[in-house]
């Protein structure tokens, strides 16, 4: 029998979280039914079918001109909780522009669109699980959740890992954002230490002089359940 993946407790946000208003029509109320990890859960898509190019990881060079805003490098590793790198896995990102506006018809925030920025990118991790994007720092933006609600600046990250159980979509935040205490989505994660794991670090050593600042952010997907032997 193949070892199943761990079921993390107390890390992911609860689905029913009234401070985030949209949960109140969409979050299931019935108790989730435990699903034993069989072959469908232990396997997953590995994406050999659609070539990902190096250009896909640079969100600043996709249009005729350069986007406005602060050019940044975002890099890090994808690991599992056993400490193993996750190589050759697809990462997809999307984000607002420097003014805090998404290139999406539903976004009616009165901030300018940037014709040189669509905010989407993707890459594959290398053999050591490393990824690297070049983009611009997204702006904070208001949203309708409650009076004077603002989202801290963030980049959406979508990850597959190697198994259905490892699928993760999350958000990367920037250090020392003054909006953290006021954001119900950030604070939906119950454990304050787990919240900090969504915050990237500024990394002076990785900045490129005269060109871009740099942030590092490691992402940890679920690993195998610890065996009795390992726990002993």
């Amino acid at each position: 029998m193949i070892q199943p993946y761990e079921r993390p407790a107390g890390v992911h946000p609860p689905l029913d979280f009234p401070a985030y208003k949209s949960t109140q029509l969409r979050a299931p109320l019935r108790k989730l039914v435990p699903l034993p990890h069989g072959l469908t859960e232990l396997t997953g898509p590995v994406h050999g079918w659609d070539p990902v190019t190096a250009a896909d990881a640079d969100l600043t060079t996709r249009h005729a001109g350069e986007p406005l805003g602060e050019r940044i490098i975002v890099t890090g590793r994808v690991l599992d909780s056993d400490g193993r790198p996750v190589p050759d896995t697809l990462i997809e990102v999307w984000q607002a522009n420097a003014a805090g506006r998404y290139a999406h018809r539903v976004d009616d925030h009165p901030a300018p669109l940037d014709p040189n920025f669509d905010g989407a990118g993707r890459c594959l991790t290398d053999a050591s699980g490393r990824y690297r994007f070049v983009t611009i720092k997204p702006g904070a933006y208001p949203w309708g959740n409650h009076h004077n609600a603002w989202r801290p600046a963030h980049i959406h990250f979508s990850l597959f890992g190697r198994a259905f159980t490892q699928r993760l979509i999350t958000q990367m935040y920037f250090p020392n954002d003054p909006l953290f205490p006021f954001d119900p989505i950030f604070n939906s994660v119950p454990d304050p230490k787990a919240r900090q794991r969504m915050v990237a670090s500024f990394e002076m050593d990785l900045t490129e002089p005269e060109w871009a600042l740099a942030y590092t952010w490691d992402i940890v997907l679920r690993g195998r359940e610890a065996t009795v032997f390992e726990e002993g």
Partner: protein
Amino acid sequence: MSPVRLPITPSQTVGPFLAIGLPWPDGPFVVPPGTAGAITITGQVIDGAGQPVPDAMVETWQADEDGRFDHPEDPRGAAKPRTEGFRGFGRCATDVNGSYRFVTVKPGSLPAPDGGLEAPHLDVSVFSRGLLDRVVTRIYFADEAAANAADPVLASVDDDRRATLIAVGDPAGQPGEYQFDIRLRGDSETVFFDV
């Protein structure tokens, strides 16, 4: 093995703008258009007020027609799928009516973790604004009654909720056209799994 455990990264919602980064033009095609023997699975994602959810994304993952996975974790060995171009994976954003549609082949039965057989099924993830984590369900098939009756996962679900996991033939449609609605919340809420 080292006993070191790295703490995992929490989930966050996809928000209302997933359409910028996630949909693929060919995402709904688990098999290429025109594949002989292909089936379609069509449905709506519906919220707790009975309204369609127009900004969700549905993903599917499944075995091939022989119940095999082209993946190193399949203990029977990674198997090249019988159907050319079969991906196992599908991804479809919902439209303004909350509707999605996949073109695929019906998977075979496959071994269950504790012996026995799991009936043909697809694992499904739903992402949307208002969901802080994905929700996971399974699609089974109404015309696999015998296999469904022996399926250990269906057996673990309350009798009165089991039907929420079963795709039915479209009465107005052709054979191989299945319907599967996903009700996120409310009286007829779909069964969602803790994976």
